[in-house]
């Protein structure tokens, strides 16, 4: 997978040239491990903080907490640098650390009743659905991006952590199934099975939205043609 390298911070025309001379993640981590090379560590942070922050946001549903979790992830990477196995892939190790932190955070919040999956996820979805069903949509009105996004976020947070992790890594972060299997340390078949379950569950949770969109599409298709609108 290609991480979010230097996302728009520098002129893109030099990106290819820089990549020729850039050291790999594993080389950088080796330098951090053996020489405590701060420059190499800063490079790893630059390369991976975007993907890790996205993962934490999707896993917790909280963008602000995700920033903290991202910093905690890299702090833990540095603290545990001696545990890194140089023959392993750095990204696998990094994803695993970030996921563990996300799961810890999620459980901690559940214990403190700051956030209940059943309540918050359903509430988020229900609030949008209430708004949708409270009024009859105009013929040219559709769910806007934010509402759809909130529905998806609410539904995603209702999934079990194991299923949510698989779905986020495969769909949003574009990891292969075998890479996810390495991150989660489970067989590849289990990852695929969880993915199928997660998509089925998401389909069930998002059916109200799908129904609404479908109804609108049907209405649009059934409208008489050749009607000019100014």
């Amino acid at each position: 997978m290609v991480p979010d390298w230097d996302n728009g911070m520098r002129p893109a025309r030099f990106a290819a040239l820089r990549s020729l001379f850039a050291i790999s993640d594993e080389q950088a981590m080796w330098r951090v491990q053996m020489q405590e090379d701060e420059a190499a560590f800063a490079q790893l942070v630059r390369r991976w903080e975007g993907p890790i922050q996205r993962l934490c946001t999707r896993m917790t549903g909280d963008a602000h907490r995700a920033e903290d979790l991202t910093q905690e992830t890299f702090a833990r990477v540095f603290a545990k640098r001696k545990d890194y196995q140089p023959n392993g892939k750095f990204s696998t190790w990094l994803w695993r650390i970030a996921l563990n932190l996300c799961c810890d955070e999620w459980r901690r919040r559940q214990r403190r009743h700051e956030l209940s999956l059943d309540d918050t996820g359903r509430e988020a979805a229900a609030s949008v659905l209430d708004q949708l069903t409270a009024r009859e949509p105009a013929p040219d009105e559709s769910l806007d991006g934010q509402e759809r996004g909130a529905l998806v976020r609410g539904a995603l947070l209702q999934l079990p952590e194991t299923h949510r992790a698989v779905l986020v890594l495969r769909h949003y972060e574009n990891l292969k199934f075998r890479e996810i299997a390495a991150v989660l340390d489970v067989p590849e078949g289990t990852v695929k099975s969880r993915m199928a379950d997660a998509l089925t569950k998401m389909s069930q949770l998002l059916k109200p939205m799908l129904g609404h969109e479908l109804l609108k599409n049907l209405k649009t298709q059934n409208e008489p043609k050749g009607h000019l609108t100014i």
Partner: protein
Amino acid sequence: MNHPNPEEWMSYLYDEINSQERASLKAHLQTCPDCAADLGEWQAARKNLDAWRLPRAAERARVAFAAPAFKWAAAAAIFLCAGFWAGRVASAPANVEKVRVAIEPQLRKQLRQELAQEFHEALDRTATATLAVAGEQARTLLADYATVFERKRIAENTAIASALDKLGQQRFADYLSLKKDLDTVAVNADAGFRSTEQQLIQLADYTPGGLPYSHPK
């Protein structure tokens, strides 16, 4: 009809299969409305997942995470340089001796501690290395000793077997010789007995002065 399992459909959905498997699954879809419905449901869910877009927070986070570290490091470096320079300029020569006297015990103590720590670490390393070498040598010696012992045991066993064999042969030879001697003795004894008997008969028949002795009837 054999339906492909969900795992295979996930590989199909995310294009992680080869063209042959893809063609096979596609052919199955043409004939199986159940699988087509499942796949349609998954595709729709997958499409809807894209509705949750995140703002491009990476740049902001990068600035928030990396820039302060650099700024703080730069500020600390400048502060240290300024402090060092100010100290060099402001300190009077007379204070140097005073400062040296003040910090000398602390420096000595610290140096002693560091030396002691280094010494212990070096000692530990040496002991570990020595033990490792000694262990290795002991294992080698034991292996050599076992080999020599085994060879010696085999040689001794062979010698004992040879001696026993030789002893058996000797005993057999002795037995034969003894038997031969016994036979000779028996034959000689028999001849002696016969001779003695003859002599006894002759002696009995002998009478001094003429007439032979007549046996009483």
